[in-house]
């Protein structure tokens, strides 16, 4: 890639907007998934009796809905990310491409 092109893109406010918005979304959702997963793993490692608590009078433990919630929430985070990335971020990217068309 030409030096001039890199300079032009880097100084484009839309590029800065794209990078900061996307990084912030990725970090937020990533932190959510990591904290959720490691809370689960740490509970297993240090305090697993908690997960043996049964639901109501049944035998099923709370460990099952928790596992299900982790699976479902992980999927939902990917949906949230792609909804924004394939809409808003993709539009920004296309605008940036348009702005530097003369150099490509």
């Amino acid at each position: 890639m030409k030096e001039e092109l890199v300079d032009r893109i880097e100084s484009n406010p839309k590029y800065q907007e794209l990078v900061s918005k996307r990084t912030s979304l990725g970090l937020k959702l990533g932190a959510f998934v990591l904290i959720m997963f490691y809370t689960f793993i740490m509970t297993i490692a240090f305090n697993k009796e908690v997960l043996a608590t049964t639901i109501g009078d049944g035998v099923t433990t709370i460990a099952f809905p928790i596992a299900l919630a982790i699976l479902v929430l992980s999927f939902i985070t990917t949906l949230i990310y792609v909804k924004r990335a394939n809409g808003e971020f993709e539009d920004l990217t296309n605008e940036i491409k348009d702005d530097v068309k003369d150099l490509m």
Partner: protein
Amino acid sequence: MLKILALISIVALSAFAAGDANFEAVKRELNVPAIIMFLVFIAGTLGITYWAAKKTKSASDFYTAGGGITGFQNGLAIAGDYMSASAFLGVSGLICVRGYVGVIYAVSFLVGWPIILFFMAEKLRNLGKFTFADIAAYRLGQKEIRTLAAFGSLAVVILYLIAQMVGAGKLIQVLFGMEYEYAVFMVGALMIVYVTFGGMLATTWVQIIKACLLLTGVSFMAIMVLYHFDFSFEALAVQAVENHTSAESILAPGGFISDPISAISLGMALMLGTAGLPHVLMRFFTVGNAKEARKSVVYATGFVGYFWIIITIVGFGAIAFLNSADGAQYFVDGKLFGGNNMASIHLSHMLGGNAFLGFISAVAFATILAVVSGLTLAGASAISHDIYANVINPNATDEQVVKISKITVIIVGIVGVTLGIAFEQQNIAYMVGLAFGIAASANFPILFLSIYWRGLTTRGAFIGGFIGLITAVTLVIIGPIVWVSILGNDEAIFPYKHPALFSVTIAFIGIWFFSKTDNSQRGKDEKEMFRAQNVRANTGIGSAGAVDH
């Protein structure tokens, strides 16, 4: 091509015949519906290979199906790569024996996907062409980094391949009464045909078909289990607790890994390892652009998440059904016939008789075939694209590279078959865990840092990367499983079964340290080049795919 197809069918038939003669020794009659479905699958996939072979001409066709796979198709194919024999047979078998512990594995196997999406997927697509080494070596020394990446890829591919081969051999041995060696040989031969003739296009379609079959088959099994308990998980759990010798403790993490370090370490290996599996990473190059790459992860996460939910039901269903009076027929001397990995296979027989057993067996076999094909292609691209085309002969033409790839596929296939036979007695789940550990310690750190850290230099990546790889392998050898169980020593030098926590940390520190202390002119230039790489990673401007397709 036709000659080879004919040869394969002869080998397949004669192997069945050989199995027929031996069936008394393995105590199971020949399952006709299983063989018919199995032959239909082979015929169908060979047909696809024939179609794909006509469309596969350039190196780009061979490695990435010309970049023409859609996000949805790729999502299914990625999910297919992930739903391997160890996932299907291994995790359901683990749940059947140890209950909730298997669910922990399932959860850990999924959480790597969102992380890949947020931090890797689109950057991989924007920077890479055929292999993940394209990204790691984007601004660094081609020779060093590609050699390192090829070592890391091959280590992961071979271990994973052995695990799948052993699984395939055992499965066919139990189901069809075929000799183990024949079974492994047949898997190897079919996989070589798929990959050499059909390249990525055939490999992807075999994977997609298999993913659909697997999801349908396991869904059906889960519904039948739940139907029996009026769709109440509680009723299923009550029955499972009643039938299992460990009673209530199967419904909680109870006996799972006694020390916290191992639990954290395993969680880390499964999560980060996913982002370092070469056969999964290469799938991001088969889609046209970053948008499709992102979509494919959403589909993959959805399919894999759903798969773990139904596998959990099937696993507990296996506890409830197999440990009953009717289930006694599947046990030989108190042990499940064919080993614990056969739990879901026996369950399918109990639920739907011979026909359903045939279907599920054919699906399990298809799973293995599809996964080994993807692995072989990943191994072949590491050698032909990274080593041959970028280190040995940088002026190679497209035809030469494709030719080398095909030769490599055959070699990888032969190595896989040989090792599959040699490692017959090894534990499959452990070898897959080991493959994940190496992927997390050797491939993931250099890939991640090359994308995000401008300070990374060739020296840091090369030395640090090898330190990670060597640490992971060494800690496994001196750990409890190899050192005590296989080598027969009294006490392990390294007390934990899963080394990822240590080897990943050491890899990151090593890469950081040797990059930080690199004051060479080359190092400075490489840091300079980060700007251009980062702009391309973020926008896709200048990316290879955008022009080609």
